[in-house]
């Protein structure tokens, strides 16, 4: 039998899981800011997107490629900083 009040996973997690979840949430928020910035610029300041940024390419190209690379970099940071989870 299960108590409804114990339903949340957060109450079941050990210290390692909580540590990993905290790091995950921090990195997640960083990415949300980057993603929201891109969408906000595209929708509300499109003229910024057409300005030249790095190597002659415009902000849209550099920011878009940067979002994909940022996902890979944050994922790598997460694997280095996270602990445990092995069985």
């Amino acid at each position, binding site marked *: 039998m299960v108590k409804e009040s*114990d339903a949340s996973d957060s109450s079941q997690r050990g210290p390692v899981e909580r540590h990993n979840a905290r790091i995950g949430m921090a990195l997640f928020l960083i990415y949300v800011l980057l993603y929201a910035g891109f969408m906000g610029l595209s*929708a509300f300041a499109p003229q910024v997107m057409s300005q030249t940024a790095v190597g002659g390419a415009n902000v849209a190209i550099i920011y878009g490629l940067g979002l994909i690379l940022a996902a890979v970099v944050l994922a790598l940071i997460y694997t280095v900083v996270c602990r445990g989870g092995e069985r």
Partner: protein
Amino acid sequence: MIYEFSWSAFLIFAFFVAVVLGLSFYLGRRAKSAQGFFAAHGQVNWFVNGVAFAGDYLSAASFLGICGMIAWYGYDGFLYSIGYLAGWIVALFVIAEPIKRLGRFTFTDALDSRFNSRAIKLTAAISTLVVSTFYLIPQMVGAGTLIQPLLGFSYTTGVVLVGVVVILIVVTAGMVSTTWVQFIKGSLLVVFCTVLTIMILRRGLTVSAPSQPQTVVKTADGRTLINGMRQGDLPQGKNDLEPVGKVLALPNGQTSTGPLGPLKFLATLQGSKVETWTRKDVTTGDVTTTVYTPVARDGSELLTPGGSPTFKGVRSAKLTDKLDFLSLMLALFCGTASLPHILIRYYTVKDQAAARKSTVVGIASIGFFYILTLFLGLGAMTSGAMDVTNNNMAAPLLARSFSQTLFAIISAIAFTTVLGTVSGLILAASGAVAHDLATNSFRLAHHENSQVNFAKVAAVVVGVIAMILGIIFRDFNVSFLVGWAFNVAASANLPSLVMLLFWKRTTSAGIAAAISAGIISSLGWILLSGQAYKDIYHLDPSRAIVPFSQPGLVTIPLGFVVLIVVSLLTHRPRGVLDESPQP
């Protein structure tokens, strides 16, 4: 354009099918238990699982659709690449480890792990079936549509071929064979798209003379006239549409650049003039005339968002148009981590660390592939090889501009992308039917063997339904169904997954209500949207009831609100036992 049967493409595809079917039958004995069938015994290596994530996720829509959209409209196709990849961040940082820790075979297991609630099992299984079906239909229609130009068979042959091969893959060895099919497909896709990108950069950009307009007339007696003459072989040679995709001017008056680095390629194109095409249909009686007109456009305009019909809201002054764009990008961000066929892959690895590492491999391979889509699309845009009538063929025709062998390989890979994704979808749907409904909800399967048999029968039934839907939906514009799948998944599944992990007062009634509200509200919104008015009812989209077409911006928060309100209303203090049925 006239496409001829390619023996080399057929033989490469047949070889791939023979390998995966041989592998499936060989691996069949390893998947006799439920743990083997649904989760490959949880023994899949994390690196293999990571690449299989790519094989599962990168559907024909990703490979052919995004490349075609970039080749046709420029930057806008890349917005899909960005959104599809960003969704993996939610999967890695929020979902991956808990879902592995809490579940066994399906994501319903994780949602229901603390409750044992029939309402959760039912609603989550229905959500899985709805999302998987919306995802399946475009894959099957894609298989039928692509097989003619790619391999030379009829539409129905394509749908049936994919259906039969995938049913065999799933029924013989379930997740074991599905994993290997997806691993092989993911590897081939990334490797050969890399080869193609290197060839594009080595070729560089070259100026060509502007094109003339082209017309296609479909006469009442079924003939096709190209620029006023019958299409096909004529005494004076073959009459067909001219391939398109030209650079009209390069920066500083150059005529050819020679090999370019990746960033230099993009910067050069940005300073160039490129020929794109507009299409206009005129129907008079039984005769339909389509006029394709070349337009010279600045590269700088093509390389900023908002040039396509899908994302035109970006450049619109109306707030609702901008909200439509933001809503779609939110659904792509939230949808990936809620797709059942992706989530079940987490049960194939042994522990949470492996789940984490395999997601990182998935993000690296999928991210790398999506960067390549930008070069493949722009390479096709400037290849001089595109079919003005079919932008889905941009990537294979780009390959043909280099060599016939590469065309054969890319064509075969394009078709196998359908196999990998459809296998995952049918397995997810079969798990929902056999594990969530038959075994856990209705207690129809009492032994492990009967659960596996149920799953195999379910896979055959779902596969046959997919084939039938593929044939029924032949003439519909199905491209938006993938968007529906992401919206329904994000609205129905994500609020429950997230709140279960982070809110202590979540109740089983709250989860079941949120899933139901997510499915109903997102589907309802879609069916009342301008897109549905235009594509389904063929009515004036301005008469649509909802202010913008993409529901995510409203229905994802609604899922959270419903879960919170219902949980607060049904929450009981500590010590009060759940009345849900127990095993």
